[in-house]
């Protein structure tokens, strides 16, 4: 932020040092909401890998597991295979549209309450207050000499930082392997090098980003605030300073001396003191404001002390502030939330969610993919029949072994057998046992009389024989030698 002061003094520097922020302790409804959200999000993050979920003997019993080694993604009763990754894509699209919805309705609520950078910065700032004391004590300590006390406090603080950071990095890897096993392996030095590397990297980033970079991440690194400015409008709920009510600023003493000459803002700077990004909300909406609403708590507290109505700083749309300035009244919050834009976002969000739930409910857990062997396309058998070879990929996506049958239809007098069988045991259908939660490759031989079209479509189908008869089928070609190339002897 440039001020006329910058114009005096020496050379202009091309680089600006970070201005340290020492947010003051504050209490109020929004602070308590932030406490609650922090507790919930941290509990979800640290606790989820430890939830157990019984899937029988053939699958892991961890409720949420991204099993990269075996290419499976488990989330409670849902198991996602790599070819079903569109569910994850759908979730990401929903998350994106959800952010659009939240931003257009309540501004940067994500930034203010739920973003990991915000939650961990908040946590680290509580550590600051716990070790160093509140804002003024922190400033004194920062400016004071390196006494034994300061060294001790810094050492303690960084030790706590490091513990939190390590725990954060350690929790992350638990999502990718069985948590109890991995914990044991980790501490006995048997875990994979990538586990240690990941923990080290995430410990370092948490320590640096949460302990030192803080609001610099939001202002200089994160693209989201820039995108959000394009999605907010004058109808979005923002943390707003009611300029019409606060200006001109003056202390209570001045206001008593000159009744009517000053606004409600007593220029106590509490809103600046509590701000975790160190901005002055009275300058209007800005990139540094993550709308955490702590300034609302601070200002409401001051207003209560000086006997003025709350809401000098409040969640308010720019449109309403303009209306109030003109003498009108603000619309109720309900009306600012329900407007065409938010309703359209919400409808799209719901539609994608419903479509995903529907397909999730409809999906079969037995899947067939057939590949016609091209080299050779067909084989002449000694009795004049023609054989074609196929590679079947049977996906048993259930966590139990399954008995299935494979049948063909649309190919007259066809006989099938597999590598284990032989032609003299060929039949119209074969039964197979599929290993649980795996892909079984089967080489299928299909023989049929030579009389017929050179290229004929027929269907290979599979279905369960163990109660759930749902299955899958695929239409594929049967090739015969062309008539002019037909071997004599038929």
């Amino acid at each position, binding site marked *: 932020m440039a001020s006329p002061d910058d114009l005096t003094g020496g050379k202009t520097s091309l680089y*600006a040092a970070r201005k340290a922020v020492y947010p003051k302790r504050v209490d109020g409804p929004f602070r308590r909401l932030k406490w609650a959200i922090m507790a919930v999000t941290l509990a979800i993050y640290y606790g989820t890998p430890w939830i157990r979920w019984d899937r029988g003997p053939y699958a892991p019993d961890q409720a949420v597991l991204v099993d990269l080694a075996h290419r499976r993604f488990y989330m409670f009763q849902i198991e996602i295979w790599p070819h079903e990754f569109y569910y994850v894509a759908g979730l990401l699209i929903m998350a994106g549209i959800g952010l659009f919805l939240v931003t257009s309705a309540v501004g940067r609520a994500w930034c203010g309450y739920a973003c990991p950078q915000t939650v961990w910065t908040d946590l680290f700032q509580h550590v600051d207050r716990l070790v160093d004391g509140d804002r003024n004590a922190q400033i004194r300590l920062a400016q004071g000499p390196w006494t034994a006390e300061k060294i001790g406090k810094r050492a303690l603080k960084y030790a706590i930082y490091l513990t939190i950071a390590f725990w954060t990095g350690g929790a992350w890897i638990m999502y990718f392997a069985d948590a109890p096993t991995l914990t044991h392996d980790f501490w006995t030095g048997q875990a994979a090098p990538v586990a240690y590397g990941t923990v080290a990297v995430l410990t370092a980033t948490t320590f640096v980003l949460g302990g030192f970079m803080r609001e610099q991440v939001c202002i200089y690194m994160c693209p989201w605030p820039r995108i959000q400015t394009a999605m907010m409008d004058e109808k979005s709920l923002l943390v707003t300073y009611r300029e019409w009510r606060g200006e001109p600023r003056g202390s209570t003493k001045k206001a008593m001396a000159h009744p009517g000459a000053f606004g409600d803002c007593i220029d106590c700077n509490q809103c600046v003191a509590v701000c975790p990004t160190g901005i002055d909300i009275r300058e209007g909406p800005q990139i540094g404001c993550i709308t955490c609403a702590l300034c609302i708590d601070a200002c409401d507290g001051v207003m209560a002390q000086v006997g003025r109505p709350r809401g000098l700083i409040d969640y308010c749309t720019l449109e309403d502030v303009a209306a109030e300035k003109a003498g009108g009244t603000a619309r109720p919050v309900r009306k600012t939330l329900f407007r065409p834009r938010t309703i359209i976002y919400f409808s799209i969000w719901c539609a994608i969610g419903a479509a995903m739930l529907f397909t999730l409910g409809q999906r079969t857990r037995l899947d067939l993919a057939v590949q016609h062997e091209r080299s050779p396309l067909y084989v002449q058998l000694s009795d004049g029949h023609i054989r074609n070879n196929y590679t079947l990929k049977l996906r048993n996506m259930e966590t139990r072994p399954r008995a299935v049958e494979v049948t063909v239809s649309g190919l007259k007098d066809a006989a099938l057998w597999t590598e284990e069988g032989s032609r003299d045991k060929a039949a119209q259908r074969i039964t197979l046992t599929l290993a649980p939660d795996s892909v079984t490759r089967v080489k299928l031989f299909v023989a049929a009389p030579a009389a017929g079209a050179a290229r004929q479509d027929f269907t290979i189908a599979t279905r369960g024989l163990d109660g759930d008869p749902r299955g899958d089928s695929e239409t594929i070609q049967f090739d015969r030698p062309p008539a002019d190339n037909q071997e004599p002897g038929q």
Partner: protein
Amino acid sequence: MADKRRIDEATGTSTVGHEWDGIEELNTPLPRWWLWTFYLTIIWALGYAILYPAWPMVHSATKGVLGWSSRGQLEKELAAEAQRRAPIVNAIAATPIAELPARPQLMQAAIQGGGAAFRVHCVQCHGAGGAGVKKLYPNLTDDDWLWGGDLAAIHYTITNGIRNPDVKTTRTSQMPAFGRDGILDAAQIDDLVSHVRVISRQEKPSASSARGAALFSANCAVCHGAGGEGGRSVGAPKLTDAIWLYGGDRASLTATINQPRNGVMPHWGERLDPVTIKMLAAYVYSLGGGEKAPAPAAVAAAAPEGQGADGQP
């Protein structure tokens, strides 16, 4: 340059004080930590250049303190892979070829490895899918075998080759050149062709084929069998089925009897290790025509007119 710093009205930001033809620059300083990050990347690059190959020299790049190379890494990975596969390879080496199918896991591994070896050593003649080349090299995917289609027979053929002058144990036989060497005259060969086309059900019996039948008994039956059912001990093809390596029409049959091809195949026993040959046999066996090993009793009892190839000795 004159210091003309001022506050820009529209943005409220100070200018840096330069001015060129009325164009000024706003002062939006970069965060200092960004600068430090930049210096850190330079330090990282220096460390990288010392530890890893980096500077191009006349013949190669500098080696780097760690001595790492992509070739070395590949060798390490190949060694690790070989070590990982060692138990399977050893198990295949220890298992007699005929007992492989009883151990499905070993069989599958052998088929996989055999497929890889096939694509290197065999595709030149037998084709990528083992379908051979018509009138040149036999098809390995069908149910007709010249020298036998069970695992042991395939294994023997791959090891010793066919009509290979370098090994005594090679599979060998020679069909006489009946036409070229004047053993039979053109009319007799024509009658013989008629007979072969009758037993393979391509023609109706005729006077010519009746004459041919007598010629067949005298000249051909010793290898091809009295009914033309073939003889695998000498690689004599079955003449009653629908599969003809060198063609089953009159012209092709006449050419074959005039001057047979007597195809050859290299012996791989010296060029490939025993495990690879076992794997190749398993792969060829798996292509669709693999036969069960004939039980000793079944060989004796086999009917010469069996429809399938299975009953053939």
